[in-house]
């Protein structure tokens, strides 16, 4: 049986590899992706219209704002789903003997964690804030920030992490992130333009229409980062403790 598995993997791998030679070359001008009017518009006009050097961020947070908004909502729903399935309230009698106690991972892990944790958090905020200039943005920064709290929970024990980032606070932040994103879109609506059309905000934000779009992308990224952080930590604490949120890994 194992042999057939190996055989099928090899055959499928061979077929996939043999299909790669039909791909267009790197940077081929005539490839289907480049021949249409859409991508050339992004490549030529992004910098001039939004003042954002990294055009991927502009496409993600501005031109395809709806897409990113609902991606964030998907993450939110995933987190809510895990809470709905796993979270148990009240009964504590089913904790196995060898899982009692949550004192963390020992002296060395605690010290290392305390030395690098603030810098990891700062790095996460840097990734969020520099989505315009470097690869990164709300999702990546949110994952790093969530990972810093997971590190805290692993090294110091879940109780310490919960005193920093309680369950109530995770849910509030997760909802707040979505609220910031959608609220920004509604703000555009109120200012008399379409939903998520940031150029309507130039009367509120400084620096003209282009900078208004740039700043709006930052605001939207912050919303995404809040949701991702909260959902990351909520998922970890629910999965690692089987929904009891007191003792476990």
């Amino acid at each position: 049986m194992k042999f057939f598995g190996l055989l099928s993997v090899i055959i499928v791998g061979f077929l996939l590899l043999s299909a790669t030679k039909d791909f267009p070359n790197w940077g081929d001008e005539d490839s289907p992706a480049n021949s249409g009017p859409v991508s050339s518009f992004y490549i030529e006009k992004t910098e001039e219209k939004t003042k954002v050097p990294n055009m991927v961020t502009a496409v993600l947070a501005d031109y395809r704002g709806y897409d990113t908004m609902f991606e964030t909502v998907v993450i939110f729903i995933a987190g809510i789903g895990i809470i709905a399935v796993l979270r148990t309230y009240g009964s504590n009698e089913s904790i196995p003997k060898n899982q009692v106690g949550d004192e963390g991972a020992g002296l060395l892990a605690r010290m290392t964690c305390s030395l690098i944790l603030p810098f990891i958090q700062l790095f996460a905020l840097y990734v969020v804030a520099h989505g315009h200039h470097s690869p990164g943005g709300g999702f990546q920064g949110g994952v790093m920030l969530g990972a810093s709290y997971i590190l805290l929970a692993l090294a110091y024990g879940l109780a310490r992490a919960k005193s920093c980032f309680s369950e109530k606070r995770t849910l509030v932040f997760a909802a707040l992130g979505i609220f910031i994103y959608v609220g920004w879109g509604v703000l555009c609506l109120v200012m008399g333009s379409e939903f998520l059309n940031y150029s309507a905000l130039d009367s509120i934000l400084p620096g003209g229409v282009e900078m208004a779009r740039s700043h709006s992308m930052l605001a939207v990224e912050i919303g995404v980062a809040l949701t991702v952080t909260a959902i990351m930590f909520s998922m970890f604490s629910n999965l690692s403790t089987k929904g009891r949120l007191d003792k476990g890994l």
Partner: protein
Amino acid sequence: MYRALVFLLLLITWIVLSGLIDPFHIGLGVISSALVAWLSSDFLFENRSAKLIHRLKQLARFPGYLIWLLWQIVLANIHVLRISFSSKVNDQIQPQIVRFRSGLETDFEKYVLAQSITLTPGTVTLDIDKDMFTVHAISDHAAEGLVSSMAQRVKNVFAE
């Protein structure tokens, strides 16, 4: 006091990370550093009773220790390299567990000693129980090098 120190440290880190010196990004940096300093400043400098001048003295002595440590790490690696390339590995290694008391008091001193042990000649810290270090050593040579001077040096660095 310590919170302001942490804030300054984080702001310098931000500037190194970002590399963009304009008011907008520096402003973002100030906001982020303040946020992190507010959220988790109590992780750095766990023992806050020590005087600042005392800390500066320790900081001045630390680079010398670090250079000595790096040299020890290089020696350690040559040792492990020689073992791993020798034709009979089993004859070269004498695995053993070593226990000793370090005589160090604060957590940070123990942390520095444990990390140094793990980084140097074929020895890994297995466990720290209060003052008692349990160390796994790969050979007699490594075990001899262990207790000779490292704990004393760490103690000297963090002396009053």
